[in-house]
Each structure stands twice: as C-alpha cells, then as structure tokens.
C-alpha cells in the first residue's frame, strides 16, 4: 500500500514538474485602437530664451500593436491633426497653423510610425520610427513608458506615454530659430490610451 502511495506521489510530482517546466505561451500581439478622448499630445518649447511654454493638439488617433504580457515593444501608428493645435490663445493658434510653423493648410497631419524598439526596463522601451512633419520624414526615437493595463480578455484598456526630443529645423520649421525667438529643440509628449473592444 505504502509502495503504491509512494509511486503515485512520485508520478504526480513528475507530472506537475513537467507542467511547471513547460514555457508559458507568449501573448499574441493585439491591435489597440487609440482613444482620442483620453489621449493627449503636448509640446514644450522655449520662448525668447526665457520661459518654456506648453501647447497641445486635441485630435490624436491611430493604433498600437502590443502583446499584453509586454514581452515585445509596442508598435505605434499615431496621427495628430495639426489644425487641432491649442495654445490657449487664439492668435497664437492662428500663427502656429500658419505657413510660419505647421502650415496646416498644406500638411494636415503629423505622424509617427514605429519600426522597432529595445527594452530599457520592465516598463520602459526605447522605440525608433519615422516622424513625419511638414511632409518631411525623419528617423526619430522616443522613450516609451508603459503606464498600465486594466480589463479582461474581451474588454481592456492599456496606456503608454512617449517623449520625443526633436529639432524642428530638421523638418523645415525654421521660424525664429536664427534669432532665438523660439528654440529649435522641442519636446513632444504623447500620452496614449488604447482599447480593445469586442469585434474591434
């Protein structure tokens, strides 16, 4: 009897061990649709060599390809409508939309499409891709922070925050650079919330 019990325990243990040693299958990459209401794009620039002022774009859309286990870098395809620029001052918004800056009549959007990424730590990725502004496409790198995941396999929300540092003159936006009216370097912060919905 003892022998049978011993054999059973050893067999169970072996079975459990075999199950435990098996690798967890990697989560599949899902396409997360950006929620424009809970996503923001902000930019920061130095004015007159003095203060830094912030502005935002109110219309962000696109998708993020990402596995829920965060095992691979998120793949971004983000579009920002340039006409949605909002600095809190109507005249300044008009100037930002004018040919001096974003030239919104000609170039309605700016886009970022990622091409790859490397892990920095558990929550951060360094993502490379192509940024298109004023019709000029240049390689750009952003530090991405994975900010959270909530939900279930059917309904879920996930968040990321990307920080870009660019020189606007690389894209042909030169107004005020030479004489220091506005700095050349701009920080762009994109906070995204993506969602998965049934049938989505």
């Amino acid at each position, binding site marked *: 009897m003892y022998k049978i019990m011993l054999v059973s325990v050893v067999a169970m243990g072996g079975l459990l061990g075999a199950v435990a040693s098996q690798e967890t299958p990697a989560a599949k990459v899902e396409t997360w649709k950006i929620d424009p209401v809970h996503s923001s794009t902000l930019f920061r620039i130095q004015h007159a060599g003095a203060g830094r002022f912030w502005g935002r774009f109110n219309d962000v859309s696109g998708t993020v390809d990402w596995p829920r286990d965060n095992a691979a870098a998120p793949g971004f395809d983000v579009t920002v409508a340039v006409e949605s620029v909002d600095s809190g001052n109507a005249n300044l*918004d008009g100037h930002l939309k004018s040919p*001096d800056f974003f030239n919104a009549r000609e170039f309605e959007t700016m886009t970022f499409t990622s091409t790859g990424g490397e892990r920095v730590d558990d929550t951060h990725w360094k993502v490379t891709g192509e940024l298109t502004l004023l019709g000029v496409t240049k390689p750009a790198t952003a530090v991405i922070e994975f900010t959270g995941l909530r939900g279930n396999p059917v309904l879920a929300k996930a968040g990321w925050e990307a920080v870009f540092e660019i020189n606007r003159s690389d894209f042909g936006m030169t*107004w*005020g650079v030479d004489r220091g009216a506005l700095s050349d370097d701009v920080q762009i912060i994109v906070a995204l919330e993506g969602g998965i919905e049934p049938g989505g």
Partner: protein
Amino acid sequence: MTMCKSSLHLRAASSRAAEQMFEQVLWSVVFPLLAACVVLGVVCYPRILARHMWLCRAAVVVAIVIAVVGSFFFSVGWPTWPPPQKWHGLPWLVMAIGSIGLIDACLPRGEWAGRVVLSIAAGLAAAWLLPLPDRLAITTGVIVGGAGLLTSLLEMPEQRSSLNIGGWAAATAMSMLALIANQVTLSLLAGAVAATCAATWVVGRILCGRMSRGGGAGGLVLGSVIAVIGLTAWSYDYDIVPQWAWLAAGAGFPLACMLEIGALKRWNGFIAASVRAIVLSTPPIIVVAIQFETVKGAMSG
C-alpha cells in the same frame, strides 16, 4: 519686494520680445530695403547711366526682387528647389517675374502688345511655380498676370510717381492683412515691398532730374509681386480677414486705369499726379482704417 522683482522680470521679458520684433523687422525689411536702395543709387545717380531710361526702370525691378528675396532669405533661408512647401515657390516666382520685368523695362513706352505678352508669361510662371492650396493654377495665373499688366500699362504713358505711392499703399495694406491672418513672414515680405516703393519714390524725388525722366515704379513687377504676396497670404488665411479686404487692398490699380482713358490720359502736372495718387491709395487706406483695431489685436499673439 516680490512685486517689484516680478514687475522687473515682466518688463525685461517684454523688452526682450520688443527687441526680437525689432530685430526681425530689421533683418527682413530694413536690410533688404538698404540693398534695394544701393541698387537704385548706383544705377540712377551717375548721369551717364541715368540717361538710359530702361536702366533706371530695370533698377527698380531689381530693387523690388532684392527686397522680396532678401526678406525671404532672412526669414526662412535660401530658397531650395524643388520648394519643400507650396508657398516656398514664392521667391522663385518673384525671380522669374523679375526676369520678365527686365524685358518689360527695356520695351519702348508705347509697346502695349509686348507688355500683354510679358504679362501672360508672368501669369504662366505663377501658375507653374506657385501651386497654392485650394486654388486653381489658372486663377493664380490670371490674377498675377492681370495685376502685372495693369501696373505695366499704368507706368507706360510716362513716369508716374503716383504709382510708387499706390504700390506703397497696396503693399502696406497687404502687410497688415497678412499680419491679421497670423502670417508674419508674408507680412514682412509685403513690408519689404512697401518700403522699397517708398524708397523708390524718395530716390526719385532726390534725383528728380534724372529719375523723373528715366525712372519708374517697377512696371509689371510691382503689380505682379504685390498680387503674389497678397494671393499667397489669402490662400493660407483661415477666413480671419474678410475676402473684400484682400480685393480692396489691390483695388487702387484697376481704379486708376479710369484716369488713363481718353483725354484724362494726357492730364499731367501736380494736381493730376495728386489725384492719381489719391485714387491709387484710397482703397488700401480704407482697408487699413477698417482693419486697424484687428491689427492691434493680432499683435497680442
């Protein structure tokens, strides 16, 4: 104490902003204007050169082109080909119109058929080099060519110093409208043209003996360039400036054509010149007067 400190900081920041605005105007208007004046002076001052009427007229053409292209260079940089943005075709177009304007300057005074052909060439160049957003190329061509033809024909009978004043008024109005439409670079470009028209008039007064015989107002180039800048600013405007204002800013030229019909064409002298100047300047002055409060508001951005 804190209040005093923050007030000092505020004053320093506002003086820095004013300093930068002054610097921008200096580089984009004053320096191109000085370059234009040098050309006018060098060509029109020496008696030997000033004897050639076409040379003085050509000097004004070159001065206007230098003012616009110089202002573009100081605001945006060297024009590149192909233009990376549609409105960056503007300096190329102005150089092309300048080349056509040099031929216009060499034509005999009564040669109206040649001037029509040159205006068509200017219109075609505009249609090709300045594909403005939401505007048909043919519309751009007709407006630019038509404006060039008007000023070319207005300059034809004899040197009209009133045309300099009309050009100054129209370009000033365009500059203010572009500023209201939040287009600072185009506003500075129009400002450079206005300053050059004023300088041409002043140089004409100083060198009256020589300039009044041989000088000019830029002929085809004057009207075409003002139309090019105004049309570009209008195309990028988000309906901030009413459409009538863009049209009225340049309405002095077609109005002045009425003074070139029949017996009025031979009406000369101080009073005739004054009436012509008033007719040319009244529409743009009305535009500036009506839009003046809006300009002050636009400065706050």
